[in-house]
């Protein structure tokens, strides 16, 4: 009897320790994740002197003027518009092209099908910085340098491997019987895509689209390489206007970063369920 009480006592202690450990683990990563974000927001209200000399203290006076400065100096409204056009257009072009490619690979049978998929998906492993010179030559050669169109085409191409990978996973999971029934009902090849497979792949398209949108929103290197004038400048270039070769206006830059983070956070908040389900599906079916 005594033994059983002791055993159940130690069992409770183990359970309590596990629970404490679990919460410690969760809180630890919560702090690790949120602290930089909180620090970023607080720092965006400091003076540069406070930022450089008391990095972890609260500001003496909350400098809302940093946000005003961020909006006026970098011309954020215009850059916002450019980034939205580029990100939205790229998302549409990329998901359309990638879904067509993924459809052919996932739903048709032909020689070297897997090899083709592997070659396309291997593009994910190539660092984009390695492709700067060829992309610059192509964009320059086509006469679309310093245009939003040039950025859209480039971003759409760069993101094809990841989008094909994600959408292919979804398309592969659609039962073949649906397409067979459609063929019996007289659907052509293109109708099988547009009427059956494409609508059923919506979660995958949203997942791929979200990734592409966030990539376009945050991309800097190609935006800098392929544009030169204010007309085609995107947000990430605007943020750099607070730094020079030797001097940085840190706090206005942080204010601009906080403003530019808002759309990507909103995209993720509203679509995170679909992103996660898309990733899981891609992983299982890929």
């Amino acid at each position: 009897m005594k033994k059983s009480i002791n055993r159940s006592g130690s069992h409770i202690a183990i359970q309590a320790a596990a629970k404490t450990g679990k919460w410690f683990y969760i809180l630890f990563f919560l702090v690790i994740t949120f602290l930089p974000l909180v620090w970023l927001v607080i720092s965006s209200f400091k003076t540069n002197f406070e930022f450089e000399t008391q990095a972890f203290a609260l500001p003496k006076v909350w400098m809302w003027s940093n946000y005003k400065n961020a909006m006026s100096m970098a011309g954020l409204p215009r850059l916002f518009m450019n980034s939205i056009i580029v990100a939205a257009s790229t998302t549409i072009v990329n998901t359309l092209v990638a879904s067509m490619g993924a459809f052919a690979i996932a739903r048709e049978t032909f020689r070297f099908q897997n090899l083709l998929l592997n070659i396309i998906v291997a593009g994910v492993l190539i660092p984009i910085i390695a492709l700067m010179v060829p992309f610059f030559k192509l964009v320059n050669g086509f006469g679309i340098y310093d245009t939003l169109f040039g950025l859209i085409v480039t971003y759409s191409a760069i993101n094809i491997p990841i989008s094909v990978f994600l959408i292919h996973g979804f398309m592969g999971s659609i039962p073949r019987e649906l397409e067979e029934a459609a063929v019996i009902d007289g659907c052509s090849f293109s109708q099988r895509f547009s009427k059956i497979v494409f609508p059923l792949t919506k979660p995958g398209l949203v997942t791929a689209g979200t990734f592409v949108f966030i990539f376009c929103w945050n991309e800097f290197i190609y935006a800098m390489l392929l544009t030169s004038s204010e007309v085609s400048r995107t947000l990430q270039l605007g943020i750099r206007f607070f730094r020079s070769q030797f001097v940085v206006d840190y706090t206005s830059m942080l204010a601009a970063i906080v403003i530019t983070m808002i759309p990507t956070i909103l995209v993720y908040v509203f679509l995170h369920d679909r992103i996660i389900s898309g990733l899981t599906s891609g992983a299982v079916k890929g």
Partner: protein
Amino acid sequence: MKTWKILALLLILALTVPGFLLAQSAAETGETVLKWPTIWVGEDSKAGEVERLVMEFNTLNEGKYQVDIEANPDYDGYRTKINAQVAANAVPDLFVFNPDPTSFSYYEGDRLMDFADELAGDWGKVFVGGAIGDATINGETKSIPYEIGVTPIWYNEALMVKAGVTEYPETIDDFWKVADKLKAAGIVPTSQMTGGTNAWTSMLWFSHIAMSIGGPKVWDKPITDPVFEKAAEILLKMYSDGNTTKDAVGGDAGVSGGHYLAGRTAMFINGPWYIGRVRGEAPDVYENTKIASLPAAGDYPGGQIGFALSNLAAGATDNAAKKGGVLAFMKWMTEPENVKAISMDSGAMFAVKFQTGAGDAVDPLQKKFTDAVNDASFVGTHFATVYPSDVVAEFGQALAKMALGRATPAEFLQQIKSVID
């Protein structure tokens, strides 16, 4: 059918809306337009005067030449872009580059315009001695020397006095005694940093020490030479025993500069471009800042670091109008009065000679920089101008390892050498 229509409409919109915006931006002027991607924009201290001079040039040459500034404020990004453009043989009409071994590779082939013939005439006389020679390789001067940097030791005299130090140390042994007094008074002796692309502040400390031991020609020696090992030992000591701040390992220019601005560190190294920041944000520190050379660490005391910071260059062209425009603009930007205007406004120093009179408001601290160079026993260069960018990037990594006690000075140098090899 409905889905197809929606898809087609979306595709058309996605591709045509940006195209419409492009059509709005295109404008034919009929002039020879020169595109100038530049870093002297935004927060750069020279931005205002440079923009004014470009506008003035455009007004004076209306109907003939027009220079369009393409703003690229991020220096590392700008450099990456120029590298890609040069590699793609689409060199910009005008551009600025940092004259280091990596950038001088632009001289290879016939991608850049050669100014040697024009500089042989009166135009060449506006530059300080040796500047054109430094920009000439195999008889070709494919860039115009422009901004120069001087990076002496800055020290806060008020902090020294507070610690009971009445005179700036003359030798490195005196330096350690001063450091001990500063620490006893609760003041950190030096600002250091291992972060950023080149560990700027510490790289300059190392360069000063190496030159003080090995002289201005020290950079001709291999990096594993005992001179550099001695310099690394001194630098390591600056990272030990509280001689610098705890966040120096991994810290960037904001960290090393921030501690000096806050009056927490007594000694620091940077160029004249930092004067505006100290004057504006830490007036007490500005008032008490003095300029000096490194306390003698070897047989070559009193040296200073001076180096070409930015050269102007242009893409080679067969178009006579374009060539004329480039030459006219280069001459305009190097006119002594124009250079003086930029210098007076920004505090920056240039490879172009100009006179200042009693009526010119020269910043007192800026004047100390000029005096420091004039009084120097010799002027040498620093590590980052001697080695290519991958080696310079390794400096900070290796230094962090040494500062954390995971590498000896010899191993620190060996790590750098492995990248040189």
